[in-house]
């Protein structure tokens, strides 16, 4: 009995040692030379593989930086932000340059299920881009959010969720402004805005007032009141087609525009 236990320990242990030695030899003999800088940068990068930098994943970005000898823009990792850029600059031995301001995703539509009703009962695939193919989607407003959550699904950082009212919500603490949701939205409703911008226009409809009123209670009707000098004397809002555009996001008279807007189309971030 004892011998049996002993012999199995010896044979299995022996095999283990044999294979271990083989592997150790192979790892030296066939080792692939990797620039250690690539691995150092990989360790710094967030590792979400979101693609915000424009390269296939974090390793692609790290490789590109090392290969280019930091001749390229090394501040493209928006999830990592200024901190990561600083560290990469340190590894590559270059100046980090001025850090860009931190951005956040903003949903430019307030037309939830109640305020902006559907024009037909959509029974197709639960995906906004697919819905867009069927008569332009169920939402009566042709610019508004389709509410099927394609942006939420696309977010690599779990920074979005669908609220009960049928609109997506951005969890700003988690949002890294990687821009994946911006590209995923077939209606181009999501925009990246600076974190310091507290007020934005919550509508992208270029329709005329009558058409907007028919389909949405909170849609911008393009009355241009907010851009008038009596409301915003500093000229912080300009009209861009049928929509206002915030030119000076730090102006104090923006609050006045929010107050005067007859359709409540501005969104004030908390």
């Amino acid at each position, binding site marked *: 009995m004892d011998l049996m236990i002993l012999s199995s320990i010896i044979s299995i242990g022996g095999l283990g040692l044999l294979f271990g030695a083989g592997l150790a030899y192979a790892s030296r003999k066939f080792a692939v030379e990797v620039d250690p800088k690539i691995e150092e940068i990989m360790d710094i990068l967030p590792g979400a593989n979101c693609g915000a930098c424009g390269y296939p994943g974090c390793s692609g970005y790290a490789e590109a930086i090392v290969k280019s000898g930091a001749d390229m823009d090394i501040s493209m990792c928006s999830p990592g932000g200024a901190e990561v850029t600083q560290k990469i600059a340190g590894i590559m031995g270059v100046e980090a340059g001025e850090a860009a301001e931190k951005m956040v995703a903003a949903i430019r539509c307030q037309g939830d299920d109640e305020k902006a009703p559907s024009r037909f009962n959509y029974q197709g695939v639960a995906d906004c881009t697919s819905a867009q193919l069927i*008569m332009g989607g169920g939402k009566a407003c042709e610019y508004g959010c389709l509410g099927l959550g394609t942006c939420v699904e696309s977010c690599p950082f779990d920074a979005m969720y669908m609220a009960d009212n049928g609109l997506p919500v951005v969890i700003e603490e988690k949002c890294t402004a990687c821009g994946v949701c911006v590209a995923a939205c077939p209606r181009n409703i999501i925009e990246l805005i600076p974190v310091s911008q507290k007020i934005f226009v919550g509508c992208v409809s270029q329709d005329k007032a009558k058409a907007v009123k028919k389909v949405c209670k909170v849609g911008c009707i393009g009355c241009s009141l907010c851009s008038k000098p009596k409301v915003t004397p500093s000229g912080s809002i300009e009209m861009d087609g049928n929509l206002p555009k915030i030119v000076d996001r730090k102006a104090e008279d923006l609050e006045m525009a929010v107050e005067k807007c007859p359709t409540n189309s501005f969104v004030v971030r908390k």
Partner: protein
Amino acid sequence: MFKKLSFRGGVHPPEKKELSENKPIEKMPPPSMVIIPVIQHIGAPAEPCVEVGESVKVGQKIAEPKAFVSVPSHASISGTVKSIDKMAHPVGGKVLSIVIEGDGNDDMLPDIKQIPDYMQQSVEEMRDRIKQAGIAGMGGAAFPTHVKLSPPAGKPIDKLILNGAECEPYLTSDARLMLEHPNEIIEGMKIFMKILDCHDAYIGIENNKPEAIRIFQKLAKEAGNNFQVIGLNVKYPQGAEKQLIKAITNRDVPAGGLPMDVGCLVQNVGTAKAVYEAVSSNKPFYERVVSVTGEGIQETKNVLVRVGTTFGELIEFCGGLKDDALKIINGGPMMGIAQFAMDVPVIKGTSGIVVLSEKQSKLPAPQPCIGCARCVDSCPMSLMPNYLAALVEHKRFDDAHKNGVLDCIECGCCSYVCPSKIRHVHLFKFGKLEVNKKLKSAA
């Protein structure tokens, strides 16, 4: 005589032809207003060549094509141009459309008259008349007919096939045309044969239209031995171009290829009649036969209607909707597109309007795939819809491309047989769009 010819796959949905197959074609009086979109066909949009306020006559050209794969549009009623604006289109989206308000006189353009010895015209002259008449395939896809009739050198057409299969459930407009205007269809066929220098013609008719088969067999005897009537198995999608070619000639159109790659050309019977009218009397394409049918309509009818008539006015002409009507489809129930408004116009490709009742329109929510592979059995293009649907759902468009998503003809057999009610065709439309986008950006 009835050859048992068919293709792989396919389904047998309830035919429902009995609702309207015995209703003779009725002519609808010109409507008070028409909406004529500049895109009613596959290809580049035409450009409006009339001004707001201009008065137009029936048959007058109101939009001019600017590309080869495009067709002009014509006024279908006489009156004044009220507006040129973006309006809802029955295939989806908003399209630049010319709205004409009728004056009730129905003044025809004087050019529309019988041309003596029309068969003596040169091939170029005939092709030009077809182009000027704005004819696009009337089976549903509306591909410009003059383009189909201009095969490149080196691709001779040796078999012309007239498509009288009408495999979509409910629709009966082609069936009525074949019963009431067989001679015009035969004349149109002769024009096709002259243009293509083709000496072998077939007409494929599903066996559920025995009367039409009998009429054409009689005409075939008179026409000589280069014209055959083929009775086809009743199976959907028997009228799809590639499936029809397979059934009649046993030739396989290669993936991504066109019928002319195997020396075939398919034309709808309605297109043949329109071509005859264009070549023999210079008549532009401004009216067509539309089946208005389904359980949700008061009185089912086959109506000769002006292009641009709104669905609302046409349905009103058929006694209006029943109380339980819920779904209005442009085309048949398998491939047609459901509408959400009645102010969209009948266009050149509108072969029917099917109104379904509330009970019929209910579509259960999709469930996960159970891997039964009934969709694989039913696919007439020999694709694997189950696998393709999963690929598209996970946005693996490159893999979907490799597995032939672009070969899908969107016939809907897979969605029809699926016990889990997966929206295959919808997913494939999405997949095709994304693949084409990628191909375009790569080119």
